[in-house]
């Protein structure tokens, strides 16, 4: 095991992926708790598909991938939020509509320009080779901003997640904080998508939150453990992917799935509530 870790750290591309990936795991786990509790899990999934479309279009036009997809996905986040606030059932359908349309646009654009190739595969399922040095820098900056904003607005996010009506009634601008959550989610997804792939990135948002909710009963407890679980799973996912020569994104999802199973079992153990 120590040998494996030493080997891992000797590759620049793995170090890059670990740096960005662990930051993204942290951000997505924090946001994920709120998204899952607000019943917004589907928004994360929808956004990652929009990200695929944007990324493909950017590549086809030879534009910088992150700089193009961040604004597109942020715009989509606001749109999806609008839709799901208005009516739940229609919102679900609208998200599915936007998701599949974005994938379709992405596939068509790519096949007309460079042809269906390894790029498309990488966009869908992720690649740890995808990050250039510039990407890493931008990703780190974005993740740190997401992290700081989350900590800064933690109490507001809690209030808006627990009871939007009460928050609104007592003068908290719930709409703004919902938009903030959507904005941070959009940025996190775009940054993480390169490594995880657009089909798999939403697992980073949903799994850690669900896992920690099996065990912990306070919001802070859930948020903190969710972040810890997420970062650990990302690391072991990458290690497993290296050791067994499996795709990184998929390995990370499976690690998260295993962690979820462990948490489910741990949650079944009866225990006295501490006073």
């Amino acid at each position: 095991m120590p040998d494996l870790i030493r080997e891992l750290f000797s590759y620049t591309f793995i170090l890059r992926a670990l740096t960005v990936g662990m930051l993204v795991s942290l951000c997505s786990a924090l946001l994920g708790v709120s998204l899952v509790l607000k019943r917004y899990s589907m928004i994360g999934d929808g956004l990652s598909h929009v990200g695929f479309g944007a990324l493909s279009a950017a590549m086809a036009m030879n534009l910088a991938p992150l700089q193009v997809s961040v604004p597109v996905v942020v715009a989509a986040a606001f749109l999806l939020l609008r839709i799901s606030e208005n009516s739940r059932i229609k919102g679900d359908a609208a998200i599915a509509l936007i998701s599949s349309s974005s994938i379709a646009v992405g596939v068509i654009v790519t096949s007309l320009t460079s042809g269906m190739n390894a790029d498309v595969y990488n966009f869908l399922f992720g690649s740890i080779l995808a990050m250039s040095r510039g990407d890493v820098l931008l990703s780190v900056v974005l993740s740190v901003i997401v992290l700081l904003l989350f900590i800064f607005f933690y109490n507001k996010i809690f209030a808006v997640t627990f009871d939007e009506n009460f928050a609104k009634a007592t003068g908290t601008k719930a709409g703004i904080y919902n938009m903030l959550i959507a904005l941070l989610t959009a940025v996190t997804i775009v940054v993480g998508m390169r490594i995880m792939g657009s089909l798999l990135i939403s697992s980073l948002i949903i799994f850690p939150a669900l896992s920690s909710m099996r065990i912990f009963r306070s919001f802070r407890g859930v948020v903190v453990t969710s972040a810890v679980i997420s970062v650990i799973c990302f690391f072991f996912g990458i290690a497993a992917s290296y050791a067994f020569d499996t795709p990184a994104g998929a390995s990370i999802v499976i690690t998260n799935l295993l962690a979820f199973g462990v948490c489910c079992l741990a949650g079944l153990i009866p225990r006295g509530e501490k006073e």
Partner: protein
Amino acid sequence: MPQISARKVSMSYEKKPVLEDISFEVEQGDYLCIVGENGSGKTTLMKGILGLMPLKSGSIRFGEGVNVNHIGYLPQQTVVQKDFPASVFEVALSGCLNRIGLKPFYSAQEKKRTLRNLEMLGIGNLKHKSYKSLSAGQQQRVLLARALCAAEKLVLLDEPATGLDPIVTGELYRIIRNLNQTGVTVVMISHDVRAAVENANKILHIGSSAEFFGSTEEYLRSEAGKKFLRQSSRAENAAESTEGGTGPCRI
């Protein structure tokens, strides 16, 4: 100048008109109960007062010194909350959010205020417990504590006794009355009209059958009041007589 003055308020819910030309006034220190049948628009009216739903016509004005941000609100519980991972303290503390403005964190002052409110409601010992593991009565007290954290002068309570047993309900009403006696204005939606006339000094009755706004004494003499009280005591008698049948084995 009244704390709240509503003039000819009309509101609709999902495009159906539910309230027509409602007018009432709440003075500092009042205890107003809003009564009426199910679906008469009581919650809609409360959301109108809080600015959560638009008015179709009419106006709701607040008196000087009443800031819409400093109204304590006890909403009906949502589905999300029933399974929400949060401690009692976290939930109650979130009521202080309007006190910290743009500051990111709560200070010792807000935490003290939250603890004081929890203790006043007799749930100080539950502060580390998980909110979703509490009984309905305890959850309601937590939400009342949160409302008190937010409120300086005015609390709006939407059916606070829903799902509570008679003893817990009685305690809750006593707590609300005490609160009112310390000068906090109380506006409460209730379908328990008997408790309403016992506790409140003003009654607003809305609904298709009858409309009334005035003091509790006037309400008791009014046609609407007499009829509604008769109906609700009939319903309660019916409930008691069925309970009576199983009484002996329940002790």
